[in-house]
């Protein structure tokens, strides 16, 4: 077993365990911290896929910004352990768990059937490209092929910045509290 394989399995297990704890932890702050952990290990997985710049962005944006926001908001709310973390209803609950299980099974089965069919017999090995080239290619694609999306995202971010400020100012809806 080479180091790369070991690193993949280590990261895969770390990712799945921390993702599971996001869903299973009753204290939302633990959930949030687990999610941060997941984000970091996903960033590491990006590294194994040679997406170095994206890994950095994943760290900065997801782990360093979005999840900090989540943690801050949760601390702001100061929610203790939830009395009932999961939705009520045994029947629908069973359906939901079943549906998710089947979905997971189907996807894994679909991918697995390819393995069984031997379609990945010759694994695609891309040419090793240096990360400088990769970032260059990324930026070329971003600014040539997807330049409209890029500008549109700028506008989206502006709209959201304005919207959240407006939201945070609102004193609540027009309806009285029941």
């Amino acid at each position, binding site marked *: 077993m080479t180091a790369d394989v070991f690193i993949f399995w280590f990261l895969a297990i770390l990712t799945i365990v921390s993702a599971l704890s996001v869903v299973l932890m009753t204290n939302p702050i633990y959930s949030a911290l687990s999610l941060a952990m997941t984000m970091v290990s996903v960033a590491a997985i990006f590294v194994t896929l040679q997406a170095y710049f994206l890994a950095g962005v994943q760290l900065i944006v997801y782990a360093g910004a979005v999840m900090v926001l989540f943690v801050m908001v949760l601390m702001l709310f100061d929610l203790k352990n939830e009395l009932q973390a999961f939705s009520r209803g045994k029947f629908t609950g069973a359906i939901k768990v079943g*549906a998710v299980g089947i*979905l997971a099974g189907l996807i894994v089965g679909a991918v697995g059937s390819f393995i069984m069919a031997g379609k990945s017999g010759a694994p695609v090995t891309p040419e090793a490209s240096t990360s400088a080239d990769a970032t260059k290619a990324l930026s070329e694609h971003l600014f040539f092929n997807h330049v409209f999306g890029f500008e549109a995202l700028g506008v989206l971010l502006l709209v959201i910045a304005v919207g959240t400020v407006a939201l945070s100012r609102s004193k609540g809806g027009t309806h009285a509290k029941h």
Partner: protein
Amino acid sequence: MSHQMLIAILLLSPLVGFILNGVRFRSSNYLLAGSIATGAVAVSFACAIALFMQLVGLPPEQRRLTVSFFEWISVGSFKVNAGFVVDQISAIMILIITGVGSLIHLFSIGYMHHDKGVTKYFAYLNFFLFNMLILVLGDSLLTMFVGWEGVGLCSYLLIGFWFNDSAKAAAGMKAFITNRIGDAAFIIGMFILFMTFGTLNMHELNGLAPTIMESSWLGAVTLGTLMLFIGATGKSAQIPLYVWLPDAMAGPTPVSALIHAATMVTAGVYMIVRLNPLFVVAPNTMMVIAIVGAATAVLAATIGLTQTDIKKVLAYSTVSQLGYMFLAVGVGAFGAGMFHLMTHAFFKALMFLGSGSVIHAMHEEQDIRKMGGLKKYLPITHFTFVLGWLAIIGMPPFAGFFSKDEILWFAYSSPRGHILLWIAGAIGATLTAFYMTRLMALTFWGSSRVDKSVHPHESPLVMTIPLMVLGLLSVIGGWVGIPHVISEFVGHIPNFWEHWLEPLITKLPEASQVAHSATEEWALMGVSVSLASISALAAFIMYTKKAGAADKVANAFGPVYKLVDNKYYVDEAYFGVIINPLVSASRDLWHYVDVNVIDKATYKITDLVRGGGSFVRSLQNGNMQQYAMYVVLGVVIALSYMLVG
């Protein structure tokens, strides 16, 4: 700079002006708004000149600068690029549009400065120019149609600019709806052409144009071009869709000058010239165009005789002159049509702006019966107006003479011309001379009938400079296309115009059966000029020297005068024959068919849907997670199907 960049700046500059003014449309800072708008158009004009220069620098057969910004529509074999082309025809058009446009913008600063919506006004004006440039530069019929619709929209917005006055708002709607009729035909024409040739790119269409004449009325080219022509009659105010243009005078006067005299209304002529190889092979369409053009020229001129509103007179005159242009393209004289388009843009814009200056001086008075003797109050306006007047009645050597004369000559001499068309044109020219002289006489000359409370004053420099520039152009504008007979007479001045347009104009395939001599041309020229001079003189005497002579003539003609004075009851006829029956039929349909059949059926369906809805509503209980579950179930089912199936 590369021509791609120049075209981009040319197009985008008015759009930027529109955005800059559009976002601050509540502002009443007329100077800032006017500077932005005028500056934007001036930049476009500079680009247009640069493009023209580049074009001149190329050998004649390669004078075609194209640019394609992006692929706009791509559906199967139907591909349209956002492509633009500058060639001999469109270069002239953009020069006229941006040149005259910038002068009119400049004029507007003075004319509109007291208006509250001045920023909005300039924004519309810039947006109009943007659309007009798209119309002119678009390399396919569809791109052109975008501009075509855009200018229609701007025209509507600007006619109804003072929408608080319901009559003006209604005029805007009338223009818009009338144009829609034409636009529908235009679209049908595009369908036919696309079905026939499989492309809408005008360059390709021209290349694909068949070489054999299509004598049938139902041939694809004939039908398609006919439909396009109907579209043109809407935009360019020809019979039967001319009724909107006189009403469009409800808008601000510079708008009338820009949109309803110089640029937008000539779009129809431009379109036909653009597609001239197609029109040439459809002689039936050409015949229709020529007849409609000649009829419009005469009809509008007669109505112009009786109008008393200074702008209405000019409006009918515009319709009449547009008729001349269609007459020209109808007989195959595309170059002459374009030529008249240009000279008309100069002198009619000049006269509209002049009338704007008069109206401005008279404090919004437009009735020429309440004017007279304005010559001494408005010297500059009067002088420039005289230049325009001489140009329109076709006095040599003013611009209108050359272009109108060329049209008349082709109407007679062209293989598709006819002596009757010439006669109609000559009558039109005579009538034009008469009513334009009448306009001059009633407005500027003779004794003053101005109300005592009104003190006319000359307009500020910002308004008179455009007048002077256009006045100069009205004098010299025609010298680029001096006919052979004259040029041979005065020494060899080449006919620049003909040379310039030559590569894009298709020669009529029929050889001229009769050789026309120079004497013939001189004779016809002499006849039309002298007819015009005589009628101008008659009008001058009738309206300045002999007070009451006009009424006597009117009484003598009695019923005819009444008919003409009421514009041949065309509006009323449209109401009686088309609009009212349509309205009452619709009402009957509503009362009987709609209520009893359609409504009943829909109620039944509604009940059914409501029943189903109340069942489905039980599923939609607001529980988001349940919704998500449905989604997951759906995915599971779809995925299982895909895996199993």
